[in-house]
């Protein structure tokens, strides 16, 4: 079967992606999930408009 250099590069890249350790992707997904879970917990807290952040600008 004839295969162009471009197709070969594509195949190699795809197989490399498959061979890449799943761990990193899982860690990334888990880190994003943690941010999302934090956001969900914070969303449950009613915040009056007058509540300012716990940091103060000093002129």
């Amino acid at each position, binding site marked *: 079967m004839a295969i162009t250099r471009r197709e070969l590069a594509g195949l190699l890249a795809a197989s490399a992606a498959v061979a890449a350790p799943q761990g990193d992707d899982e860690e990334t997904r888990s880190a994003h999930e943690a941010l999302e879970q934090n956001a969900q917990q*914070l969303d449950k807290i009613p*915040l009056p408009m007058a*509540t300012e952040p*716990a940091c103060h600008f000093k002129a």
Partner: protein
Amino acid sequence: MATLNDNVFFAGISDLVKRLRAKEFSAVELTRAFCERLEKIGPTYNALAYSLKKEAIKQAKDADDEIKRERYRALQGIPYGVKDLVAVANHPTTWGAKPYADQVFDDNATVVNKLNKAGAICIGKLAMVELAGGGGYRYPSASLTGPGLNPWDRTRWSGGSSSGSGIAVAAGLVTFALGSETSGSILTPSAFCGVTGLRPSYGLVSRHGCMALSWTLDKIGPLARSAEDCAVVLQAISGGDSDDPGSAGKSFYYGPEYAKKPKDVVVGYAPADFEEWAEPPARPDLQNALSVVKSMGVQIKEVELPDFPYGAILSTVLNGEMGAIFEKLIRSGRVDELADKRQIAGLKASLELPASEYLKAMRVRSMVQDQIRRLFFNVDVLLAPTRMGPAPKVTDRLDAPSARPRPQSRGLNGLIPAGNLAGYPAISLPCGFAEKLPVAISFVGRPWFENQLVALGAAFQAQTDWHKRHPDFRVKLA
């Protein structure tokens, strides 16, 4: 040269100061002995980042000269170590992380200058969790120097992120150490290693020259042999610093005579912490510690922490600030050189936190501060187990969910993130052993209430001897 008994390695500050002034041994002899011990034992517990022996001996000679001339200073000749996020001029300051392995600063951190002024002798940089663990680490091995091994049992973790500081004090490699806390990094290694640790009020101790992980949460504080030793060190390192924007411009002076007597102190605690939240093997000694506190004559009141998701708030604040601090490391790709994959992913994800989310967390933090301030209308201090059990195994996943059912009562669960969000001081006191490993209780007080915390700690330690116990090391030094 005098032969130093093993007991000098586990002696407290005032004892060593007295013996130095009595010329029982010289500062050079003491420093040399501690340095040899730190260099020999430190690496076997992954506690040593960098030895400062040469400079330390030179400083010790100066201390001996001064002692000869009867010119005394509070910590003269006392060997100590600093967490490797505290800059010591012209020596590596790695922040426990491979990307910073060759980093050298031109100037000392303010706390090192203050300790120099008090006569203390810095003998080494102590190992730590990489970047103080801000990205969230999965395993104790998240460090340039490997996992901190517990001096009481090498198969257990020392706690972090001030791992080397906890180990070095517990193993008698230094008389005291400096650590830092963003959320639990002084209290946890203190508890797991069986030493006394003091987290100061936010703003009491300058962080100039120390790695920033979170500008609004970071604190520098001592780990030592007793509450009173922590006070002596805190007195030396506290005080205003125009180089630290978070500095409150306040000083600390230890005067037990100015603290309330135990009978006038109202201690808030939650029975559920000691009966349900605490892991079963730790309960007997934690409950015994509670009885000791009660026997001191304090007034006791049952309390609960206000209901907030403290972990989520703290994590969001930390992510927002840490992402900004380490943006360059993350975007350069060098973040991938860190040891812990979860830490790497956490740091990368922190850059994606929306500003609105950070500000929301800081607004909720205002509510937390207000609610905790109100809680302290009714009590002078809070008392809780520092950690609910002894140190985990060094191979354990640190983020594994607990297999035990969640207790019904909230108790004071979440006191570490809550206290850090509010900027309140705390002292951790060894109070026994579970599975042959130390466990500890903590008192948390109002900001600038360190004097009372230390006085209570000293009263507790006058009735117990847990702080005097140490692992049995009999090491022959060449």
